[in-house]
């Protein structure tokens, strides 16, 4: 027994005595509020946590130092003492004109990066005049049909200085090509562009639903992007492997880590099979997680994810570049935790969640607005959400030291337990033949659905309290101004699209689309022909239907 183990043993004995003595006596008179205490993810929580010897005896292996393997304490040595996280508010609606104005407003208010929300037709690869786009144009994000829209969207925004995150998956190659093309027009070469494309198709099959092509060709597109960007757009994060939507769909915190890292493993495997070298592309892999309200569990989740990922990249894939081992992540507060009832309460929820993300060492953060259980946010509510981040950064003091929760007996135990559980989930996926097979079997979807059902039931039966929803409810209807997408949006977008189609060089478009088709049939990298098509003002819909003609369309099977 080590000296630490001996000391820890004494403390544990003292805790046992305390539980059996004074606590038991007190409980006889004053029972605790519930028989069992659990986290938001149903993890049982003890009354009191005692130190673990391993935290000291295996300190280097479990925690290490910030900026060093296994990165449990953070990916940079000085963290927020050096620079705050990027304050990046996801935004986009109606046409490129309106969204451009919102971005300029957000930058004036102190956001430090852009985050583009595209409408569903753009995300799935339908033009605004496609029958499939009916009712959806400009609704959940901005409508982008061609390079002309992207030029308007980014007008006056210096792409060599502002980093842009684009939530785009099935059609990521097309939108990335448009971003590169706008950069060219601004005189910014691709190697100077900074930003992120989400490009995470696996979680679309699992939880988010904006897939277009089947898994095989979708993974090929992703590998093509990795290869192309490694050479030509080296500062772009080529993927943002997302647990956020898995969590939104109902997973637990451990499932969020486990399924997300299992997705990461699949992407790395695919790229290796395509002949890439792990240390060439892995430094550009980024992550995206949710932050929910269970403060300590969420902060521990980020720490556990960092440690587990570092180990996977080192031990499973033999990566040696420290940047390949770092899990860098964006966080968004939990959309699903917002309530339509008493919407002001959401400001408080978002504060707790944002704090969890910062305590967990996030690299960038989106804070939700209070009105988002009902509609897209108003400018006013987005401003409060942004101010919440600024308050945490400048007033709360939590940024003054690196990894301030380290050494909390509870947080370290949560970190350990979440890592073990997530690793177990990855083993389950491995046993099913990897993530694509597990998705095709419906395994991942089913696991998430079951967690969502348990969570919903715990609210419906009152075991779990949601303030303003199943307790402390009020009668008064919410009087709140909600944002509305202008009714004229669809017509204006259709007019613009018609104008583009009428003014472009049709022969050039046709030749470019033929080249896209040829590349899709063969095995050459798809990015150069897609970029050429984009430059010729081929539309998102034209490029994607060309690809779908070769790749086929994916459709969810239901039971």
């Amino acid at each position, binding site marked *: 027994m080590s000296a630490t183990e001996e000391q820890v043993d004494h403390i544990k004995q003292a805790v046992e005595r305390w539980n059996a003595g004074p606590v038991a006596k007190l409980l006889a008179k004053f029972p605790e509020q519930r028989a069992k205490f659990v986290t938001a993810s149903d993890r049982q929580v003890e009354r009191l946590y005692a130190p673990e010897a391993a935290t000291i005896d295996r300190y280097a292996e479990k925690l290490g130092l910030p900026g060093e393997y296994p990165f449990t304490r953070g990916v940079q040595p000085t963290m927020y003492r050096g620079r705050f996280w990027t304050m990046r508010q996801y935004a986009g609606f109606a046409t490129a004109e309106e969204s451009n104005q919102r971005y300029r407003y957000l930058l004036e208010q102190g956001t430090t990066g852009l985050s583009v929300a595209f409408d*569903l*037709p753009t995300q799935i690869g339908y033009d605004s005049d496609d029958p499939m786009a*009916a009712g959806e144009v400009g609704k959940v994000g901005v409508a982008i049909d061609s390079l002309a829209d992207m030029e308007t969207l980014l007008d006056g925004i210096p792409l060599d200085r502002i980093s842009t995150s684009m939530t785009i998956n099935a059609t990521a190659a097309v939108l990335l090509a448009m971003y590169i093309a706008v950069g060219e027009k601004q005189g910014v070469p691709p190697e100077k562009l900074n930003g992120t494309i989400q490009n995470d198709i696996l979680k679309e099959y699992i939880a988010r*639903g904006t897939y277009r092509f089947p898994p095989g060709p979708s993974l090929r597109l992703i590998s093509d992007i990795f290869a192309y960007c490694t050479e030509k757009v080296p500062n772009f994060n080529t993927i943002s492997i997302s647990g956020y939507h898995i969590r*939104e769909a109902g997973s637990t915190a451990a499932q969020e880590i486990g399924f997300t890292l299992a997705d990461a493993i699949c992407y790395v495997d695919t790229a290796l099979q395509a002949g890439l070298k792990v240390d060439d592309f892995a430094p550009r892999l980024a992550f995206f997680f949710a932050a929910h309200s269970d403060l300590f569990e969420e902060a521990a989740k980020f720490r556990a994810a960092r440690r587990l990922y570092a180990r996977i990249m080192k031990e499973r894939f033999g990566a040696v570049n420290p940047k390949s081992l770092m899990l860098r992540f964006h966080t968004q507060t939990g959309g699903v935790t917002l309530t339509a009832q008493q919407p002001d309460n959401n400001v408080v929820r978002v504060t707790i969640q944002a704090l969890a993300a910062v305590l967990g060492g996030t690299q960038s953060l989106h804070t939700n607005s209070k009105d988002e*259980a009902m509609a897209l946010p108003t400018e006013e509510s987005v401003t409060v959400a942004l101010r919440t981040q600024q308050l945490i950064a400048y007033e709360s003091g939590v940024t003054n030291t690196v990894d301030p929760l380290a050494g909390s007996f509870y947080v370290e135990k949560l970190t350990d337990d979440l890592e073990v559980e997530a690793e177990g989930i990855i083993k389950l996926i491995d046993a099913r033949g990897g993530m694509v097979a597990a998705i095709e079997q419906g395994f991942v979807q089913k696991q998430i659905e079951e967690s*969502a059902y348990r969570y919903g039931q715990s609210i419906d039966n009152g075991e779990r309290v949601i303030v303003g929803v199943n307790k402390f409810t009020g009668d008064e209807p919410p009087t709140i101004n909600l944002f509305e997408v202008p009714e004229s949006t669809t017509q204006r977008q259709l007019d613009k699209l018609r104008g583009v189609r009428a003014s472009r060089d049709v022969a050039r478009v046709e030749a470019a689309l033929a080249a896209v088709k040829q590349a899709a049939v063969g095995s050459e990298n798809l990015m150069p022909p897609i970029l050429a098509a984009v430059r010729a003002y081929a539309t998102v819909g034209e490029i994607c239907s060309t690809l779908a003609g070769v790749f086929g369309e994916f459709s969810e099977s239901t039971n």
Partner: protein
Amino acid sequence: MNAAVKPRILIGKPGLDGHDRGAKYVAQILRDAGFEVIYTGIRRSPEQIVDTAVQEDVAAIGLSLLSGAHLALFTRVLELLHDRGADDIVVFGGGTIPPKDIPRLKEMGVAEVFTPGTPARQIVAAIDDCLLHHSVM
């Protein structure tokens, strides 16, 4: 009410919206309440949803939408039901629906709209009510 006589309900996701947590949850609580529930899966056209509803002879259709396209897509489903002479099918809906759209949806013929946070028992009771009321008419 005897579980065996409870009617069949279709839960549908019209349009391009992929958020199906609510749809799946409502499908399950209705099953728990004894209904036979068919879930369409995501990204179905109004035509596909109405075809399935008519083929499966459902008593009600629940439409879930979080993309803001509810006015366009719920309207289309109601039109198609009318065209098919299937007006007797009760239509209810849910999702991120702004309060001010709810009266408009009800005028169009949507029987009930359930916004986020509506308790399961309230949803089940409202649907029981709608179907009972409907069958009496």
